[in-house]
């Protein structure tokens, strides 16, 4: 009889906490189940408590790899983007989270690794290594990478300058980049507040674009980063859309 081949998890000799810190993680079905259930609960809560709505939902309905780029002023941002994704793609969606903030203390680590499926991103050190991990992930079809290129939560609600790491990641590749604007999350849960307030939050999803023809040199990267920032800001300039106006337009589109 031939010997069976056992395909063990590669992190058997590590303590549970260290297993959460490493990436890629090797979760089993319990983690997936827990994450799916929590995602459903979070979706429901966002819809009810923050009257969460998504505009441009169709731009996310694809099976290709995506990089989602958004403004960042609240922990709600990540949850909102995850809530807008189809549930079956949840486990292949990786929000890049600051390794120095989310991957140190145990409760945050658990939430980041189990509930959100975050990718530890080195902001101050090992940035290049983190970017390599990102591009390796994107090589697999169906990966969704969520990146907040401002690098931290904005304390004023304004959109800060984008860091160039994201541009280096997508320049010269075929991967689709989706700019997104999150409105209202600053009022709902600004940095430093303990709990979110019941304020309206809206996610506007832009059309995908790619930077296949751009080279990855320094000037181009800076240009791509500011183009992306402009694209995100542009999404907010569709006039101050009240939800009813938006609904009307949708109904009109459906009629014509």
């Amino acid at each position, binding site marked *: 009889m031939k010997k069976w081949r056992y395909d*063990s*998890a590669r992190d*058997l*000799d590590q303590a549970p906490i260290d297993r959460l810190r490493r990436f890629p993680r090797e979760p*089993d*079905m319990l983690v997936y189940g827990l994450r799916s259930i929590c995602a459903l609960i979070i979706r429901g809560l966002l819809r009810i408590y923050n009257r969460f709505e998504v505009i441009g939902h169709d731009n996310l309905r694809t099976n290709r790899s995506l990089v989602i780029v958004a403004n960042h002023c609240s922990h709600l941002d990540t949850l909102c983007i995850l809530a807008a994704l189809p549930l079956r793609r949840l486990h292949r969606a990786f929000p890049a989270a600051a390794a120095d903030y989310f991957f140190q203390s145990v409760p945050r680590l658990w939430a980041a690794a189990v509930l959100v499926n975050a990718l530890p991103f080195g902001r101050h050190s090992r940035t290049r290594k983190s970017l390599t991990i990102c591009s390796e992930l994107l090589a697999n079809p169906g990966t969704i990478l969520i990146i907040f290129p401002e690098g931290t939560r904005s304390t004023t609600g304004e959109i800060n300058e984008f860091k160039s790491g994201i541009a280096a990641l997508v320049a010269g590749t075929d991967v689709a980049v989706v700019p997104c604007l999150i409105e209202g999350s600053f009022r709902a849960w600004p940095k430093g507040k303990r709990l979110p307030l019941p304020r309206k939050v809206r996610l506007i999803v832009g059309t995908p674009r790619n930077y296949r023809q751009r080279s990855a040199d320094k000037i181009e990267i800076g240009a791509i980063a500011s183009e992306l920032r402009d694209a995100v800001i542009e999404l907010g300039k569709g006039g101050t859309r009240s939800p009813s106006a938006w609904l009307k337009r949708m109904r009109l589109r459906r009629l014509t």
Partner: protein
Amino acid sequence: MSPQIALHDAVFRAYFVVVLISLIAGGAILGFLRFVLKKDTGSMFRTYWSWIIMAGIGLIVVFLGRVPIIVGVTLLAVYAFKEFARASGLYRDWWMTGAVYAGIVTVGLASLVSHPRGEEPGTGWYGFFVAVPVFAIALILLIPILQNRARGELQRMSLAIVGFIYMGWMFGHLGFLANARNAYGFVCFIIFASALCDVAGFTFGKIFGHHPLRSEISPNKTWEGALGGFCVAMILPWLLRFSFPFFETRDLILTGLIVGIGGQLGDLSISVIKRDIGTKDMAATIPGHGGILDRIDSLIYAAPLFMHMAGYYHPLR
């Protein structure tokens, strides 16, 4: 079983003292070795610290009563199977692992609910509890058929069935013991005795060990250690006779054999699995012990044997 009863139960109070004394004695011996004899105790203090925490959790759970014991045993079984699945690679198959988790939860439910027709509540549904493997294995065998897959399925089915029967159902007997009339005595004794037998085996092996017990399976175990553990396990039922005053000599001897031989066989059978997979420990969950599965391995073997032996001579209810 409830906190109020536990507070006034002589057996539970006695075990509280016994566990406390053994932990203090163990710490004193370890301290004596380390600070007086200046022996190298290596990572033994870490192991000892983990023992203290485990004993504390165990005592609290038993104190809280029947439902927490059954829920706790079920959670341990789930976690033990999770470790087994991660080590054997079965965890990549969501449906198989899901079926085994469902089976383990069913074992817990069967110990929790009482027979739907008659019988007083809080007694467990023995008939269903014993029959759970039938349904669980039927479910496991159904999965490849539903998925229309055959390649490599025998390995997955076998791993799932071993995982369910061994870590789910056999270990689940420990939870079912909480339904017995003499629950405190049975549950406390079997946990304490198999833990002490493990420690005794380890200690005797360290001091006198020369002849390897099963060199191909577990190179660190010796005949001397196994014999030491066996002797301790044979004496324990007499020392702790207050936990089952109605036991006759025959029952006490059988109890000693089950803990002394069964416990060590359980240890070795997990070692066989680990050896074949090629890993040293199943996981690194408990510092100084390895995985949950490495800790409960002797209980998995001894608890069901003990329950059926005790139930045969003295009906559990």
